[in-house]
């Protein structure tokens, strides 16, 4: 993942040729699309809610240092230990140290995209720890040795036949069954055992409330509650942008998140954690740790336009509505965050030059912006990042990596030709005469690989108007 050898174009080609993958995505994405539509049936109310969501997130970002300090202070008062990590490596080491301090070897994990960003499982396994994903989708892809293909439904690229085979092969003693109920029962049985005996539980954070020092988790399965309640130690990891100012900010964001993500008015569980187990209480972790990760987010914040990327609440609805994502799936993007949000987030975190042109994989149809619950202007940011790719004076990591003299000269020539009518006329004439014989090399070769080369007219429009006049004038 994320290595420099990855070729986005090759991935796209492979994905488009995989009919099973395309069928799996088409079915899942249209289901999620319909469910969202049903739950946000009242357009005026939805628009109002999105305004609120946007305001909550922008307000939080505008006071981020202050709110993070407050969150830290509150958490410490509440007995939660707070750790800061500038890089994913630092975050991984903090978690390893917590495990070692407790002689913990078995971790159960709730779903966390930040932990995917950190490649935490790999890191801990390399250090001899057992890490168990417990969200059903995450469990499936862990068994398969894969990565999530969607932010919310990570195993969406697999159908039940594939999962049936996987369970039969990988879970000791599991019979072959294609019945979804039975597959779930198999996972339940295996994972309950893990919950019971784990030394440590890990979770992400959907929102952290600065006012009260409360960590909020949204889920349907109950595995998140298991991970944060049964083991004696709970570690929560969050990107530093996930803070909201007040408790009263929570209900509108929750409503937007569940409605956008899965078309639910509310999920089965909304879990708000404020303190470790208090004296006299019978369960819950004795220790709670919060790891707050930067990993490039503070750099994104300093750009008044691009900082809107950090408003994201990771609902994944832009993926479900994207004509590109729904056809190629999440793995093609090569990094942890796929789809429209991945297109704008990944290049800013990893550097434009490393992300293989995923920023160009957009038709700028605006669907992502129209459904975004916090109104991130994704297409506008895509255009900005495309410009940055060519701008040697830009500010995003990897800016200007596409800058090249031939292209600059082509555009300079284009500008010149269009400034002088005589030159324009001449260019049109030459184009009309020789355009068809123009060699198909470089970008033109790429472009005409799957498209018919347009034939240039022998006479330009200007010429035709001069000789034939204009009808119906």
């Amino acid at each position, binding site marked *: 993942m994320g290595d420099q050898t990855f070729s986005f174009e090759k991935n796209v080609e492979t994905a488009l040729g995989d009919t099973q993958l395309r069928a799996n995505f088409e079915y899942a994405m249209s289901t999620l699309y319909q469910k969202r539509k049903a739950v946000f049936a009242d357009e005026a109310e939805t628009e109002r809610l999105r305004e609120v969501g946007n305001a909550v997130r922008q307000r939080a*970002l505008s*006071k981020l240092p202050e709110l993070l*300090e407050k969150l830290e202070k509150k958490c410490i008062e509440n007995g939660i230990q707070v750790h800061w990590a500038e890089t994913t490596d630092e975050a991984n080491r903090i978690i390893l140290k917590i495990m070692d301090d407790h002689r913990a070897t078995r971790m159960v994990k709730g779903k966390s995209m930040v932990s995917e960003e950190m490649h935490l499982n790999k890191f801990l396994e390399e250090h001899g720890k057992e890490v168990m994903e417990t969200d059903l989708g995450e469990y499936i892809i862990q068994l398969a040795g894969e990565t999530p293909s969607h932010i919310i*439904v990570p195993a969406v690229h697999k159908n039940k036949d594939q999962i049936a085979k996987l369970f039969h092969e990988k879970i000791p003693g599991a019979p072959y069954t294609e019945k979804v109920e039975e597959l779930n029962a198999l996972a339940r049985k295996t994972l309950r055992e893990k919950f019971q005996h784990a030394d440590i539980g890990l979770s992400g954070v959907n929102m952290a409330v600065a006012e009260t020092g409360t960590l909020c988790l949204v889920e349907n399965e109950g595995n998140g509650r298991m991970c944060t309640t049964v083991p004696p130690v709970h570690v929560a990891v969050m990107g530093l942008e996930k803070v909201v100012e007040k408790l*009263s900010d929570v209900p509108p964001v929750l409503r937007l998140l569940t409605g956008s993500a899965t078309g639910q008015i509310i999920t089965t569980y909304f879990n708000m954690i404020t303190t470790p187990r208090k004296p006299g209480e019978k369960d819950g972790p004795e220790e709670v740790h919060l790891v707050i990760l930067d990993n490039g987010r503070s*750099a994104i914040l300093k750009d008044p336009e691009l900082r809107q990327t950090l408003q994201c609440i990771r609902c994944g609805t832009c993926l479900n509505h994207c004509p590109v994502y729904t056809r190629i799936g999440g793995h093609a993007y090569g990094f942890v965050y796929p789809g429209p949000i991945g297109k704008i987030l990944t290049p800013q975190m990893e550097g434009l030059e490393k992300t293989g042109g995923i920023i160009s994989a957009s038709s700028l149809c605006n669907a992502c912006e129209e459904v975004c619950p916090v109104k991130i202007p994704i297409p506008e940011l895509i255009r900005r990042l495309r410009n940055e790719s060519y701008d040697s004076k830009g500010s995003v990591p990897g800016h200007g990596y596409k800058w090249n003299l031939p292209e600059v000269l082509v555009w300079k020539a284009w500008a010149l030709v269009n400034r002088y009518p005589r030159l324009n006329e001449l260019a049109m004439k030459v184009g009309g005469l020789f355009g068809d014989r123009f060699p198909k090399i470089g970008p033109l070769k790429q472009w005409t690989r799957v498209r018919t080369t347009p034939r240039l007219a022998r006479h330009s429009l200007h010429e035709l108007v001069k000789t034939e006049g204009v009808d119906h004038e």
Partner: protein
Amino acid sequence: MSNTARERIFAKLRPAVAAGQFDIPSPELPPRPEWTPSEKVQKLKTLMEAVRSEVHVVKADAWTDALKALARQRGFKTLLHGPGTQVGDAVKQAWSEGSGGLPALRTYEGAIENYKDTLFHDTDVGITSTLGGIAESGALILWPDAEEPRLMSLIPPIHIAVLDADKIYATFSEAMERMSWSEKMPTNALLISGPSKTADIEMTLAFGVHGPKELIVFILEP
């Protein structure tokens, strides 16, 4: 190391927020619905049933009779309750008046470390009280405590929750405001709308993946 990481992060964040302007709108929340008490009961019941919760609206003075009838009919074997709470004490009282055919009553003995085996492998049903309900979302509010620990509503395959009809709020925001949550957040606050579920395999909804397979709610009306 983490101290210096903290300093480095804040050293980047402070100038970052100062760069350029934020354009923060100040929209109003959508208006809070005004429902009568019986509308709230109905709304909550409808939404919760839609996500496969089983909801019984019963008279407050007869709810333990309804519970006993249900327990007998379903053949529950063990029932975990929390003495010291109104609900737990009512169950205890009702069972003492005749417990033929009823599940054995259990209490959460000591801390989880010593109670795990029983809780995971030998408990059918957990019964808890609730702090209230949210009509607009179709959810119950639970603030687990020493008498009714967090795992009572998670580990047993069946969770029974008891809710006073007059504690149903229109919205989550209203519940937070009326009860001044921001001044007294508990160890753990929960919203629960139904039995545990997942759609991670082919978008097919399946219940009871990790938590309870059934959620049974008694709404007590005066």
